């Protein structure tokens, strides 16, 4: 099965990219592929992941290990499970520093204090265990861990899922602030479009393992070009409107074991026509930098 297929984008320094789409559309798989952390039953069969002159898809494991965290760090989904319950957080943050910067754990403690201050945790709590922190605080610890080795790129995989809305806002604010201050590149994965709208320059909407639409966040949200994006945005409840069920997209995401012929969205698409059933649409550039994979956007000849 091809969980992710034909996905391509570029991330510049200091830029942030949002990956959005419904469950199982390949957001996390795309992100994990970048540093080759796919589960045992997954692998990269083809393609390139270029990072400052190296192809991460093919370099040696030992070389990749030096890039992990030092250059590309991850903020994982579900902070409770991403922290080791039997280790003090100071140890856990120091781990990556000790590994990459050739320091002892004791020597790294200064940096740990610095990092905790950066993410807004009182450094006096550094020797506590994960269970002594609240959900939002744990996510802050995770962010501190991701920043430990001063990475160039941060991949945030659903960083605010399972947090309440207040805390979500705080964490997102923190992420954007840090991204600006430290001039980081960020990949933000979320199924929540409002989260991406708040934080990202560019957004890639994924559907069935492919990119449906890609472009500057503002443009994509204000003037969506792909019927799937349009449906997604319509299905957001309007807080000022009447209290009824927002429109939704009928049907189910495609079975990737046997992807449909033609456009992967055609079964659910309200605008589908004959060509959609047989030919897969390429990414058409509708405006400079704004791409949509839909036959309706084909330049008229």
């Amino acid at each position: 099965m091809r969980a992710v297929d034909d996905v391509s984008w570029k991330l510049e320094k200091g830029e942030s990219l949002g990956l959005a789409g419904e469950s199982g559309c390949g957001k996390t798989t795309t992100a994990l592929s970048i540093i080759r952390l796919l589960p045992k039953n997954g692998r990269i069969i083809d393609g390139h992941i270029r990072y400052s002159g190296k192809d991460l898809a093919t370099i040696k494991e030992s070389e990749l290990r030096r890039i992990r965290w030092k250059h590309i760090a991850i903020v994982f989904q579900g902070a409770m499970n991403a922290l080791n319950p039997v280790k003090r957080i100071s140890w856990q943050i120091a781990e990556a520093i000790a590994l990459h910067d050739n320091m002892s754990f004791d020597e790294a403690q200064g940096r740990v204090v610095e990092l905790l201050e950066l993410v807004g945790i009182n450094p006096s709590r550094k020797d506590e265990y994960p269970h002594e922190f609240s959900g939002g605080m744990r996510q802050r610890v995770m962010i501190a861990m991701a920043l430990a080795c001063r990475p160039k790129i941060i991949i945030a995989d659903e960083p605010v899922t399972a947090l309440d809305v207040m805390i979500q806002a705080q964490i997102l604010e923190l992420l954007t602030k840090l991204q600006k201050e430290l001039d980081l590149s960020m990949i933000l994965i979320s199924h929540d479009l409002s989260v991406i709208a708040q934080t990202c320059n560019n957004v890639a909407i994924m559907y069935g393992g492919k990119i449906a639409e890609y472009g500057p966040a503002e443009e994509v949200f204000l003037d969506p070009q792909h019927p799937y994006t349009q449906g997604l945005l319509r299905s957001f409840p309007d807080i000022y409107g009447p209290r009824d069920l927002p429109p939704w997209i009928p049907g189910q995401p495609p079975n990737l074991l046997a992807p449909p012929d033609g456009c992967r969205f055609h079964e659910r698409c309200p605008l589908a026509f004959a060509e959609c059933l047989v030919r897969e649409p390429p990414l058409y550039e509708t405006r400079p930098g704004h791409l949509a994979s839909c036959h309706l956007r084909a330049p008229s000849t």
Partner: protein
Amino acid sequence: MAFPSGSVSYWLRRRFGISEVRREKFVLTMNRLKEITNSVVHHRMGGIGFAILGFFVTMAFIAPFLPIPPPEHSFLDSQGNQLQYLQPSWEHPFGTDQMGRDILSRVIWGSRVSLLVGFLASVIAGVLGTAVGLVSGFSGGWHDEVLMRINDILLSLPWLALLIVLAQILGGHLSLDVIILTIGLTSWNFTARVVRAQVLTVKERVFVERAKASGASNATILRKHIFPNVFPLVFANTILTVAVAILSEATLAFLGKVDVGTLSWGVVLHEAEASGAALNGWWAWIVMPGLSLVIVILGFSLLGYALDEILNPKLRER
């Protein structure tokens, strides 16, 4: 810095020096230890187990200083005959044995060998079981298959028969070190199973993936992330293994498979059995070492279960 790097003193300071961070850590560790001891003592089962073991371990340690006759001393009457098979009295609270030796003294001295064998054998079993469990659970594949099949074979063999056959092969009478080794090598399977099961669940947790993402090697992940998570289990299990090891030693000794001259509770029981203590009504000779065995084993079991409950984060109440 006053210590040029590369010098011996610098190395010593780095390795053992009491820097501020180290002192802080030491205090934290001591606090944690105190906390655990406190919870054990206040845990109902753990408290009882702790008291029992405290009593017997202290007894074993201070045996030479207690006002009791040496365990190998035969009491003689005025004609020079051994005072055999005396019933309990003020002079000999548990009576005397077939050579006129004081049974109370033999039981107290016997606790030393029984406990020693129990501790050492279970340390061997614990180390071996943990190693096998970690490798088996973490690497999976054929390593896992091979190790677990060996484990199955050991589990399915009747343990007593195995011990006796081993004893027979090694000449019928086992010295103390051989006993310790034999018991250690035959009782690691349970620990290995438990550790493997725990490793299988821990290695799927996100923090293992995170450690991998942060560039840690498999060895580091196993040592620093997975081992600390299974350690409480190992610890509690090893305490439980002590009980099994003590019982194994007693069984072997009772069957007369232990070197002549060794003194353990099993040996005392063996001599009682050989002299027909049960038929002749010399009750204290059987009851006292037997009761000591039962109580000590109970103590280890209670402590083991209590520790499991206290150290296992899943069972810990907060």
